């Protein structure tokens, strides 16, 4: 039980109690907030804007109703006569039409094109249809897929799902599939989630 030694000044205080120390601490705090050294930390990564072509809604292939394959928009019958040999597999095809025919068993032009009337297409029951109804040519072999397409389960739809409120557009078969080479090619993927910090890079 000893009281404070008489030699010690009654004004002694712990160092942190002095207003000067508190002032220094507050000034440092203010300075730190002002300089904000941790502000740039998370934003350090400069995330580049995404190429707008990645959000383009247009179908992959552009085809008109006339479905001409030549640049000069000429009809097929302008060049092709009716009396061409229908058994000709079309070996010179690639020169004039830039077409690669890779459609399963269909290795002849006249599997789908009418040999007589060159501006028409053939369907499997022997009838002919116009180019603008090309979906039915596909349907005459790919019945199950066409049924799904009709019900909206296959293919691209845009606009209004509720057709009482607006119009819905369905892409035709050939707006995604090249009829001469129907397998869909790959795409370059859009950039993935940005890795802000190295620790987020998956192993």
């Amino acid at each position, binding site marked *: 039980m000893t009281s404070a030694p008489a030699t010690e000044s009654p004004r002694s205080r712990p160092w942190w109690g002095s207003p000067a120390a508190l002032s220094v601490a*507050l000034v440092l705090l203010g300075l730190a907030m002002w300089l904000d050294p941790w502000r740039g930390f998370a934003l350090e990564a400069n995330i580049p804007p995404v190429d707008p072509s990645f959000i383009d*809604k247009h179908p992959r292939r552009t085809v008109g109703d006339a479905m001409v394959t030549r640049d000069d928009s000429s009809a097929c019958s302008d060049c092709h006569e009716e009396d061409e040999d229908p058994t000709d597999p079309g070996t010179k095809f690639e020169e004039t039409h830039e077409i690669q025919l890779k459609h399963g068993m269909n290795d002849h032009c006249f599997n789908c094109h009418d040999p007589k009337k060159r501006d028409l297409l053939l369907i499997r029951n022997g009838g002919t249809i116009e180019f603008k109804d090309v979906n039915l040519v596909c349907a005459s072999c790919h019945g199950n897929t066409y049924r799904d397409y009709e019900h*909206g389960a296959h293919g691209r739809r845009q606009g209004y799902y509720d057709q009482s409120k607006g119009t819905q557009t369905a892409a035709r078969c050939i707006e995604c599939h090249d009829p001469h080479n129907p397998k869909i090619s790959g795409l370059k*993927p*859009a950039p993935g989630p940005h890795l802000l910090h190295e620790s987020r890079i998956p192993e």
Partner: protein
Amino acid sequence: MSEQIQLSRREVMLGGASLVAATAAALSPLRFAQDVPDLDDFLQRHYKELSADEKTRLIARLKRKLKRKYKKDVEIKDPQPIPGVEFAYMLNLQKCIGCRRCVHACANENNLSRNPEMQYIRVLKVKKDRLSVEDADSHYEDEMVPDPDHFYMPVSCQQCRNPPCVKVCPVEATWQEKDGVVAIDYNWCIGCRYCEAACPYGARHFNWQEVTVPEPLLNPDMGLLTNRPRPQGVVEKCHFCLHRTREGKYPACLEVCPVGARKFGNILDPESEVSYILKHKRIFVLKEELNTQPRFYYFFD
């Protein structure tokens, strides 16, 4: 035993003045604080309790603030659930090629923050021989997709019928709408992130920083519960583009999909494409064993 401290008048004056100055210096960065909430923000009531008049005033206030920030006039709508409509989403795993167009179309439509980056859809690249989403990769940077040894599985909010995120919210800032979509009141959310932890699909995302959308990319067609720029410190997630879908339109991710893998519609309408798929295709939901009962279905042809 009390020890008396004796201070001179000079010491008191000096100490006091330096304390005041230091406090002012410490608080001075607040001068640069942005979006300081005003009284209306403090008194803002829950979305579900708003009268028509209060909602109009809230929308006017939000528009005013957005105009100040983006120098652009925006439209904020609040379309209501349509009676007899329950939304469902179908995604064809056989078709998806993992091109991530949906991810960025979503960001564009919904004014998602670009830097820091916010994405509602995460595309998982899953090994075909493993069929496990646990070791899937969402950061793939291939030159060309699809990779023949993998399939791709986009995951976003599953709009569960039994949503764990809604159960854990301590302030009821998130709830299920009548058409099935789990909505969030961005003004009511306190940012506790319980929902983010509860969601088994990683669908909820927290705004650690202020939402940054370059002004020319801002989509001015906004919804009150959906794509208006969110305040910092709240949780957000996919909402099936309610501002579009309640007006009969398809969601943005569906329209951009180059392979037509995404299908959306009213599951209560027997003629809709989603009802057709539900009847005719092989369907599964993600993490079925958790009994979340998602409205987002994956299917194969």
